[in-house]
């Protein structure tokens, strides 16, 4: 069984990476298969969006199979499927610290986090994705790992290209293959990369403290699955005949085995890795039915009632204290949400902050917020047009959003969705401040009838008045795609900026 488990971990891990790599434009307007499939198996994300969004997205139907299975067999998701767990096993394999100690110092943290998250979700603020392992992985890979890695690789080929000659000839095929199949089309640029990278490095480094430190102590998804598998009648158990030789506890990466006259496996913590079964000289660790996996002192929730209530209470109060940005009249003016984004309040209730949309964005324009959307909007996507505009006929972000925070739009419809309105700053715009032509914004405007037009104006030139063309926004036509802001040739701040004035938001609460 142990070998099968490792095989499963590799299979799901590689599948996860495959889907991640294919979360991009591959030559067709529609991504052929659901690259966000892992979220369908994520009960934390599912419950967060269902509680927060007050609707039942059909997207999460596989949970109807997964959750009963977890209730019967235990947390096999963590041991067999979760790519975060597999990654930690990969790095933690050589960790000398096997720490057989059952329930260590920090194991309650994950339940406190979970309780808090459920509290906020109940009050329409879905923060689950910030710490959900799948969401955290995608976000960290997309924004923390990939950008520096690709910068490293491309800087190597920059050198070979500069050196030229045989070195360039030798490296060209490899570079060509990498650019075609592995590397991003443009070097990805994301805000807060250091933070996202640091976070995942810390999570891996915690393996030095305890094996599966994240899963034991911090992971709210693990805590949730632990609740579901509290009894796990078909879970892994120590049956009659155990002579308490104590050979199994050191093999347990979760510290789930404790001594109670004989060895007892706490179903809540067991992730069915089967290492203990291999270690058992008597072969008494099996799946026999019954609920012998529940130690006598165990409780459904490891927290005290007070801890539970305080955690849930803080979670419930938190959304009430923040909520400021969800009012349309209090939105920061330059907060541009992706096309198809639902109303701000609903958006905060649904968005996982998983980074799928930011990963898939053609132009790299979707960037994570820190506090620009309020503390409650942390890591949600916003279009930063100076980095990348919203491509007129592209609908990828809506296609990959797992929760419907960004609706999946038809291409023809999407071209009419207004995410904001362009505003020209005449203190910066070249034909307003200099006797020179520009009109790059008008040239790039994708609206067939042009949402940017121009007026002929006589301005003072070195030898008297000169007639130049000055751009003007037709607000009724502008959809706020931001290509004008992106392509404005001025260094630094663009002379045309997108504000969220007049934005169309799908649905409403």
């Amino acid at each position, binding site marked *: 069984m142990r070998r099968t488990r490792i095989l499963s971990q590799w299979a799901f891990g590689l599948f996860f990476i495959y889907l991640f790599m294919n979360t991009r434009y591959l030559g067709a307007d529609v991504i052929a298969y659901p690259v966000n499939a892992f979220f369908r198996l994520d009960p934390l994300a599912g419950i967060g969006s269902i509680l927060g969004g007050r609707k039942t997205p059909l997207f999460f139907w596989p949970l109807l199979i997964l959750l009963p299975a977890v209730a019967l067999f235990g947390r096999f998701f963590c041991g067999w499927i979760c790519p975060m767990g597999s990654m930690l096993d990969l790095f933690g394999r050589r960790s000398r610290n096997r720490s057989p100690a059952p329930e260590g110092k920090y194991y309650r943290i994950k339940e406190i986090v979970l309780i808090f998250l459920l509290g906020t979700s109940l009050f329409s603020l879905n923060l689950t994705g910030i710490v959900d392992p799948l969401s955290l992985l995608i976000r960290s890979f997309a924004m923390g790992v990939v950008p520096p890695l690709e910068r490293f690789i491309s800087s190597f080929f920059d050198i070979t290209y500069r050196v030229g000659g045989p070195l360039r000839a030798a490296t060209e095929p490899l570079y060509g293959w990498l650019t075609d199949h592995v590397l991003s089309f443009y070097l990805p640029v994301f805000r807060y990369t250091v933070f996202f990278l640091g976070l995942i490095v810390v999570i891996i480094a915690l393996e030095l403290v305890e094996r599966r430190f994240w899963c034991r102590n911090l992971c709210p998804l693990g805590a949730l699955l632990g609740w579901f598998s509290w009894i796990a009648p078909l879970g892994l158990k120590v049956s009659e005949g155990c002579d308490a030789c104590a050979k199994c506890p050191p093999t347990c990466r979760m510290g789930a085995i404790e001594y109670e006259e004989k060895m007892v496996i706490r179903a809540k913590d067991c992730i069915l890795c089967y290492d203990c079964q291999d270690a058992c000289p008597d072969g008494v660790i099996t799946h026999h039915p019954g609920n012998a996996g529940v130690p006598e002192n165990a409780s459904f929730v490891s927290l005290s009632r007070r801890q539970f209530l305080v955690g849930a209470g803080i979670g419930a109060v938190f959304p009430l204290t923040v909520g400021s940005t969800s009012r349309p009249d209090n939105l920061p003016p330059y907060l541009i949400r992706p096309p198809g984004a639902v109303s701000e309040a609903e958006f905060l209730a649904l968005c996982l902050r998983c980074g799928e949309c930011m990963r898939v964005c053609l132009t790299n324009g979707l960037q994570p917020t820190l506090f620009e959307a309020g503390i409650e909007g942390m890591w949600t996507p916003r279009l930063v047009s100076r980095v990348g505009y919203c491509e007129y006929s592209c609908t990828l972000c809506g296609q990959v959003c797992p929760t419907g925070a960004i609706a999946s739009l038809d291409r023809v419809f999407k071209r009419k969705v207004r995410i904001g309105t362009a505003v020209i700053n005449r203190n910066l715009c070249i034909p307003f401040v200099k006797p020179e*032509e520009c009109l790059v914004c008008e040239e790039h405007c994708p609206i067939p009838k042009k949402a940017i037009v121009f007026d002929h104006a006589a301005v003072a030139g070195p030898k008297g008045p000169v007639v130049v063309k000055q751009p003007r926004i037709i607000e009724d036509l502008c959809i706020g795609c931001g290509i004008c802001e992106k392509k404005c040739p001025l260094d630094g701040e663009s002379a045309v900026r997108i504000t969220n004035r007049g934005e169309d938001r799908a649905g409403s609460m």
Partner: protein
Amino acid sequence: MDRREFMLGTLAALALPGLVIPVAARPAAGNASAGKTVLAVAEDVDPFQATVRAVSFLGGMNAFVPVGSKVLVKPNIGWDRRVEQAADTHPEVVRAVVEMCLESGAGDVVILDRTCNDARRTYVTSGIRGMVDALASKQVHLEYVRENRFTVVKIPRGAAIKQWPIYSYALEADVIINVPVAKHHSISGLTLSMKNLMGLMGGNRGTIHSNIGQKLADLSTVIRPALNILDASRILLRNGPSGGRMEDVKVLNRVAACADPVALDAYGATLFGIRADRIPSIVAGYSMGLGEIDLSRVKMAGT
């Protein structure tokens, strides 16, 4: 002499053919002397056939592409628009060019453009990707422009730009074949062959728009296509260069070819009913001796 004086001089010269052309406006060099420049125009509902015939009037592709040469084909693939929207060069025109190059014995044919919309999308939507894939030739490469592959080039004769980053392959290729589509542009007046070379420029191209005519002419002194082929199978009359409205598109079923970019652009302007001397790049190109502005001094071939 400044531009205004020059243009007045040029207009005077055009108004009085056969009389004295102002000395400074006389072409300094090039192939523009009377009678030598041949401009071929072919009309056919099939853009492929039109292209083949236009080139055949110039003596065929053999005259431009030596055996074993590295060829750069530079269509306009700037916009995420469909073929019929006339914002990009017709893929059948490009296919004809590529196939003629191969028949002439070209070693490698590279097709590329530094696009305005996302290059992956423009290559697909314009039909160029599908065309190249269908050719399935190992000698034909549809290449994405990489930002690290530009080399800063000095422009010794440049009046408005003295240096600019140019795509390396444009400097390495033995032959450049420039394949623009004819369309409206609010600053340059029209996008024709000289404007199309902007797709080989790196850096902040947006700054080109000030004094664009001179800058395009400056650019044309360092990037010298052996042949320019103007796709006027359908032209964009308004709301260019990206277009998008079918009512702005006019079907002409015409393809023109000429080694001289100035003459070809001067011809292109007539398709829009615009006088060549109203397009700054054509005037600047003529004054720098890059070609002939006066179509009466160009030998017209074809239908």
